[in-house]
């Protein structure tokens, strides 16, 4: 397994763990809780710190072993494909949230069959947007790993 694959696994695993951390902070009893803004802000700052720590570890390894972590044209092509899919996921997820928000406003008496966050609350909106970012990053890492493995 190349160092790039190991880094993609690390990024995927750390991203999932940080999202699970968010999930425990933003939900209560399986539903998104309407938390005070200071609690949401504190969780967001903690998430940023965790994300920086998770990013620093591979960066330190890359600085120590530049010959193992240098990227060639195939690595860059795989990264570009991952970035493209990350963009697709962001666009799709944002559009799903827009349609959900509009449908909720238009048909307030209907209950969605799929559990969706309440975008009218700060916590729901923040969690939905952060989940979009983590989902997009996870898809990118999965595409990168698949490309290295195929």
């Amino acid at each position, binding site marked *: 397994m*190349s160092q790039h694959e190991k880094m993609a696994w690390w990024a995927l695993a750390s991203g999932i763990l940080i999202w699970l951390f968010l999930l425990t902070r933003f939900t209560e009893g399986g539903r998104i809780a309407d938390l005070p803004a200071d609690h949401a802000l504190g969780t967001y700052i903690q998430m940023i710190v965790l994300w920086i720590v998770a990013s620093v570890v591979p960066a330190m390894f890359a600085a120590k072993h530049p010959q193992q972590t*240098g990227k*060639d*044209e*195939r*690595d860059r092509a795989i990264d570009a494909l991952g970035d493209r899919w990350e963009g697709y996921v962001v666009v799709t997820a944002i559009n799903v949230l827009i349609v959900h928000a509009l449908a909720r406003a238009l048909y307030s008496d209907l209950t969605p069959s799929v559990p969706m966050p309440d975008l009218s609350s700060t916590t729901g909106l923040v969690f939905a947007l952060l989940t979009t970012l983590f989902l997009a990053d996870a898809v990118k890492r999965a595409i990168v790993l698949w490309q*290295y493995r*195929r």
Partner: protein
Amino acid sequence: MTQADLGERVGATRQTIIAIEAEKYAPSLELAFKLARAFERRVDDVFQFHAKD
């Protein structure tokens, strides 16, 4: 010459050389020329194009 040696000569990783050998990755023209030069061959001695249709 090992795959790692060849990769080092042409500025690619060993994994990329393996992927090219296995026909799982089509190199750029630049890399193809570098590989041909490393073998002291012409590009079309090293690479052949097979149309899929």
